[in-house]
């Protein structure tokens, strides 16, 4: 079945996303970028250019390069906003007989719908190349404040591009979907969208999967680009103070400054200070000049404070239009790259007195949400089984009280996993399967889900019997654990129902515990492993003496017996270093045995040294993968 795509048809940039494996995913353009500039041009040679390519030639072909056409779509030529934009846009805008706008490109008139369609066609072609098949169904987003004629015109643009437009949805609705807000009931949320060139705030009511825009406001000429400009101005001023040279006169220097300013701004979202180093930025009679500056986050915040503050006025207005106070907003979600800036988040936190919701790439939220909507409309989402994950790791206790993982947390269910275990001592008649849940590496710190015995194991040296343990979780979270002796075919099982009713809080607590105890847990686990290895070595040494005692000189035999006793006694104590030392001594002595038995210096002792063993443990910890 053909896929349906979600399209964020932006004023300056556009994006397309599709549902893949139940998750929305941005589709890269043919040029390898996730974002496609909303620019269309006809070159001097009559070639039609769209996206990045069109943008690159805008400066030499201003009359025939159309951008920001979203500001014109579905509007009348006499509209005040169109008249305002005409003065700012370099290409020719005319009136159609029906009063709509027309733009002139390559000596021909086009409707804004046709221009938008060219952008959509490019997205369609790139998507088809990526998915390797035809794509016709699409959901396209528009700003919440678009009226019927603007929505219809956008839909027409989709049709011209060859799309079957399933639905036109509001950008803030799409963002809410990307943030999973559709699962909430009866909430009022604020969608704060601070992009590169425009700012929008929308207040939405959510109930039973429906979204209602209560109010919307914004500033069509406020964005992250303004902050870049502030940084550039600051750098220029500082440089002029220091060196007396005005970089603004130097095209080349300005280009470098622009890149550096943007980079510095992005870096300051994660670090508190960044270096701006531009060697050989310019030169005067005294020689070349280098620009080296340090920009702190505090300085950036000072430079951009009023711009960020400017976004709060529209927020206030939108709330007042919706007749709400900031405290009545249940969630604030962040859209647009500029919301990565900590100061923006701080400002919102203060204004709404709550932590804004993060987690979705703010540049992609709109397109991702549109793809989710497209998936819902095509029956890809909702119809398909909702797959759950196991919130906590599941495993069994093995030698020395170690919790051995069978199914790690966040594994998608249904799933099953088998692993082969063995006995821990010679002629062990039964094993106990102790089913554990939790993130801690030791059984004692994990939660017991159940336990059972598998008996009737035939007498055999330890490590020989093969006990296959299988964990199977069905779609309802019911866990079946079975243990089967591969030798006798004897089997025992236990059924544990849905995670034994752990609340969400309990799950989170267990996950947090695991993090806080990570270091001590790792140490304890390592100790256990050392002890298991020591025990196994002593066992192997004893066995070697038993089996090859006649070939070993009496003196060496005595030495080894002494060292085995040393290991055993160290294992009784608490000092792990004593265990390590005793192990080292014994394994050195054992090498001599190897040399004697095989007549080769440095040979491995018989029986090898693999795997822990020893004390009466529930189940021998070593296993072979099935």
């Amino acid at each position, binding site marked *: *079945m053909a896929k349906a795509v979600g399209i964020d048809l932006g004023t300056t940039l556009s994006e397309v996303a599709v549902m*893949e*494996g*139940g998750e929305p995913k941005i589709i890269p353009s043919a*040029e*390898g970028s996730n974002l496609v500039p909303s620019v269309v041009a006809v*070159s*001097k040679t009559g070639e039609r*250019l769209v996206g990045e*390519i*069109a943008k*690159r*030639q*805008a*400066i*030499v072909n*201003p009359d025939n390069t159309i951008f920001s056409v979203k500001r014109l779509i579905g509007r009348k030529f006499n509209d005040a906003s169109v008249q305002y934009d005409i003065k700012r846009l*370099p290409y020719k805008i005319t009136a159609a007989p029906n009063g709509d706008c027309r733009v002139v490109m390559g000596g021909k008139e086009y409707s804004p719908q046709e221009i938008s369609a060219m952008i959509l066609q490019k997205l369609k072609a790139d998507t088809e190349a990526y*998915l*390797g098949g035809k794509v016709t169904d699409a959901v396209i987003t528009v700003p919440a404040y678009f009226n019927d004629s603007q929505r219809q015109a956008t839909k027409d643009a989709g049709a011209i591009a060859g799309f079957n437009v399933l639905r036109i949805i509001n950008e803030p609705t799409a963002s809410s979907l990307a943030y999973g807000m559709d699962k909430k009931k009866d909430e009022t949320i604020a969608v704060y969208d601070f992009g590169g060139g425009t700012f929008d705030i929308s207040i939405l009511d959510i109930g039973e999967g429906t979204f209602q825009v209560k109010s919307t406001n914004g500033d069509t000429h406020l964005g992250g680009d303004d902050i870049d400009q502030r940084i550039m101005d600051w750098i220029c001023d500082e440089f002029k103070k220091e060196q007396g040279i005005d970089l603004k006169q130097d*095209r*080349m220097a300005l*280009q*470098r400054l622009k*890149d550096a300013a943007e980079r510095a701004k992005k870096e300051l979202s994660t670090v508190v200070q960044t270096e701006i180093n531009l*060697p*050989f930025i310019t*030169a005067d009679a005294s*020689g*070349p000049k280098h620009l080296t500056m340090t920009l702190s986050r505090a300085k950036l915040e000072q430079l951009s404070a009023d711009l960020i503050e400017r976004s709060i006025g529209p927020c206030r207005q939108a709330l007042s239009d919706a007749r709400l106070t900031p405290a009545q907003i249940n969630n604030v979600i962040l859209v647009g790259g500029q919301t990565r800036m900590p100061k923006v988040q701080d400002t919102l936190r203060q204004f709404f007195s709550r932590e804004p919701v993060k987690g979705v790439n703010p540049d992609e939220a709109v397109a991702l949400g549109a793809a989710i909507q497209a998936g819902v409309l095509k029956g*890809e989402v909702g*119809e*398909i*089984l909702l797959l759950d994950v196991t919130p906590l790791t599941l495993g069994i206790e093995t030698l020395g009280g170690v919790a051995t993982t069978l199914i790690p947390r966040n594994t998608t269910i249904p799933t099953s996993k088998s692993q082969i275990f063995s006995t821990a001592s010679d002629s062990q008649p039964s094993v106990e399967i102790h089913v554990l849940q939790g993130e801690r590496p030791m059984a004692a710190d994990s939660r017991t889900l159940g336990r059972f015995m598998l008996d009737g194991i035939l007498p055999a040296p330890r490590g020989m019997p093969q006990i296959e343990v299988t964990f199977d979780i069905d779609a309802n979270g019911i866990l079946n654990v079975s243990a089967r002796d591969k030798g006798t075919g004897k089997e025992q099982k236990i059924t544990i129902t849905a995670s034994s009713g752990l609340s969400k809080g309990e799950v989170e607590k267990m996950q947090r515990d695991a993090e806080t105890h990570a270091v001590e847990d790792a140490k304890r686990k390592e100790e256990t492993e050392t002890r298991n290895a020591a025990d196994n070595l002593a066992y192997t040494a004893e066995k070697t003496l038993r089996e090859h005692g006649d070939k070993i000189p009496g003196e060496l035999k005595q030495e080894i017996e002494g060292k085995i006793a040393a290991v055993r006694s160290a294992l009784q104590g608490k000092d792990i270093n004593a265990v390590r030392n005793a192990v080292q001594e014994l394994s050195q002595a054992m090498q001599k045995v190897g040399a004697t038995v095989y007549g080769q210096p440095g040979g491995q002792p018989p029986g090898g040294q693999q795997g822990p063993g020893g004390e009466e443990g529930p189940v021998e910890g070593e296993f072979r993968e099935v």
Partner: protein
Amino acid sequence: MSEEGLTNDEIGEADVEQASVEDIETLQQALAEQKKGAEKYLANWQRAQADLANYKKHVGQEKQEILDFGNSTLILSLLPVVDDFERAFKSLPSELAEVNWIEGIKIIYNNLKAALKKAGVTEIEAKGERFDPHLHEATMSQVGEEGVVLEEIQKGYRLKDRVLRPSLVVVGRGKEEIEEESHGESSRD
């Protein structure tokens, strides 16, 4: 389910009178519902399988993409260093030109370029070529031969067959014929 059906069926055969028409209708309806359900589950299962198959294909494609272009972010951040070297040599004071130490720095620069070349990075030709937005980005236009790159402000690079960074160029806009070295003002801001 099937066992139940069988039992009912047997009863039906044994004693037709007792099985009311309604019972049969109810069962037929239940069967139809089950069939519909089964079809839906099969369809969803097939769709899930297809989704997985397609997803696997994409993962393969993406792996190739990562192999080919995974280092492009790193290379993009190194290119300004190459630019800086070139700027430094361009403004090299004449009294230093013959200093052997400078020669060593030039070798370092060449080594850096050789390493990039080995990674598949090649320079884009710009000056004197016809302006091509697939390769070049116009930053301004000047009086000069129309549609021709008059000056390269920043070198452009390809990574394998993809434009990694277009050349930033000044493009001729014709008019006063071919006039070398005429510094026209930018066409617009």
